[in-house]
């Protein structure tokens, strides 16, 4: 009896979850292997890609979520290969582990786009790259320039809030900025703390830092939420006016970094491209024009978002 109920419940679940589809004419099956849905940046990617594809009636989109797990992503791509998509877009969780399975997709004749993160071997038709190193450098230069404007020469005390250690984005956003800081002997990073990309941890770390450091000129958060968390801590102690805050990511929407620039919380943020728009622009041409040969690599530029262009960027990136 109990077994019967369990079976019935499972069947109900399956029926509830499956969606009926009615293909008509030539449709293109686009599969997007996302490494982790549960991050605001990646959620925005999914949102944008879904929007672009829903504007194309002959494109059917599937998004898989690897939940930040290499093995899961490999298994999901293997399943997708069996389904023979017309286009496979992969946002790899990590470089080395995903290299082989993307080679399998290529060997199966599936046009494959590698998104945003590089893999160990060029097992892709084209690679849409975002350059965290360049973002780090520009953020570092922005901070140095502002300090130079404040003191008449490049000097000052900087606090840095780092993302999860060992992640590519963290390494390069850190390394790029430090390439710049090192050129100026009077620019000092007085405190570095790891806040795991989270606003809550950014706030907690900053409270301690504010106690230990009586003078701080600038805060560089490797993403916007950590920089906002630092602002909240400084505001708590009434010190938010004596320093400025710089973030990275520049997502749209009410919870994104662009809104924080508009609200005067961040001095600037650096747009980390969502990249799926470019991927679909190239992908669409690959689908429809067999003679089209994409470049091996497209490098996407970052953009600085300051109060001057924030409104315009907000409208562009809010969906």
């Amino acid at each position, binding site marked *: 009896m109990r077994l019967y109920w369990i079976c019935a419940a499972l069947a109900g679940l399956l029926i509830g979850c499956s969606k009926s589809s009615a293909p008509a004419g030539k449709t293109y099956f686009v599969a997007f292997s996302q490494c982790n849905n549960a991050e605001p940046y*990646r959620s925005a990617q999914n949102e944008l890609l879904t929007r672009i594809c829903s504007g194309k009636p002959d494109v059917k989109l599937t998004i898989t979520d690897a939940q930040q797990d290499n093995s899961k992503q490999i298994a999901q791509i293997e399943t997708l290969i069996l389904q023979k998509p017309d286009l496979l877009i992969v946002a790899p969780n990590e470089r080395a582990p995903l290299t082989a399975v993307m080679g399998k997709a290529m060997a199966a004749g599936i046009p494959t786009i590698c998104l945003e993160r590089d893999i160990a071997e060029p097992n892709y038709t084209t690679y849409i790259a975002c350059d965290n190193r360049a973002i780090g450098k520009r953020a570092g230069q922005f901070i140095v320039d502002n300090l130079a404007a404040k003191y008449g020469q490049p000097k000052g005390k900087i606090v840095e809030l780092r993302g999860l250690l060992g992640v590519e984005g963290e390494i390069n956003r850190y390394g790029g900025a430090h390439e710049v800081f090192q050129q100026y002997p009077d620019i000092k990073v007085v405190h570095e703390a790891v806040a795991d990309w989270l606003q*809550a941890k950014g706030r907690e770390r900053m409270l301690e830092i504010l106690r*230990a450091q009586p003078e701080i000129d600038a805060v560089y958060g490797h993403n916007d939420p950590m920089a906002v968390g630092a602002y909240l801590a400084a505001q708590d102690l009434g010190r938010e006016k004596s320093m400025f805050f710089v973030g990275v990511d520049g997502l749209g929407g009410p919870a994104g970094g662009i*809104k924080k620039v508009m609200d005067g*919380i961040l001095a600037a943020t650096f747009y980390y491209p969502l990249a799926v728009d470019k991927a679909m622009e190239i992908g669409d041409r690959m689908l429809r024009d067999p003679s089209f040969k994409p470049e091996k690599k497209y490098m996407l530029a970052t953009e600085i978002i300051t109060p001057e262009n924030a409104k315009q960027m907000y409208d562009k990136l809010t969906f």
Partner: protein
Amino acid sequence: MPRPSRFNFVNLQSGLGLAIIVLLAVLTSPRSGSGDRIFLEVGNLTDILRQVSEIGIMAVGMTLVILTAGIDLSVGSTLAMATSIAGLTLATWAPATGTAGKILFAVACALAASALAGAVNGFVIANLRIQPFIVTLASMIGIRGLARRLTNNTNIDFGFGSDAGSVFARIGSQKSTVVAAFAIVFIAFSVLLSRTVFGRRVRAIGDNETAAVYAGLPIKRTKIYVYTWCGILAGLAGVLHAAQNHQGNPNAGISYELDAIAAVVIGGTSLAGGKGSMAGTLMGTLIMGILTNMLRLNNVDSNTEMMLKAVIIIAAVWIQQFDTRRFGKRGLR
């Protein structure tokens, strides 16, 4: 049944541990420009109290659960769900009432959902007789999924303008509010545990469930209450978390359950159930909080911090076992 005293040797040992940590923190504290030890500044000490409050509130609920020889791994996810619901309610779902109405509605929704999550945990544990570890492991996963589903994987920011959300954030992030919430929860549950029939039942179930059954105690009902309280307290921590960070975040509170369990265990409560106290949990919470503050004021590398914490946890629990044995107390299991 062990004597439900509020001050026994276990608490003395925790107190000793706390004293050692405080001494270390004072000695290693960096000095401010005026030569004072930063650790001892009133601002820093109250910072510590505020920072431990979320984990402390969760640890109070966890103490009840562990005293019944159970465990609740879902509190971190419940905290995330509560922040998400509070954020969503303030940002989008709020009814067209005044500011106070919106805030009360948001807090009520967050706490009600957390209570429900806890009650479901308790119901399944008590009635389907599945081990608490398994049940709460499953709900840890499920509730996290629910929080992400509700928010569509994004953060819900609020309180940067001048709406109800900003009032909620301003009130809820004040030190006095956060620390008072912890203090009230701590005192209320200390009394509940040491002075009421409910408290004795909690201990009795954890000490010897079979005996409690034969004594005719309402095992199922007590367990459901315990897990419901644990859920509500995790929800309360979530409400404070949301206010302090101006944000509902479905990824908040990851591994908070382990911090809460660590605080309880360092405070001398036995994972085998039946033995432990709220006072011990308070000390365990403070030991972890002061240790963290000490390491971070000194800008200790975060990986080193994790390694040092591991050593401290083992040392603290070992010291307690050693002394309970020496004083001929029960508890070494």
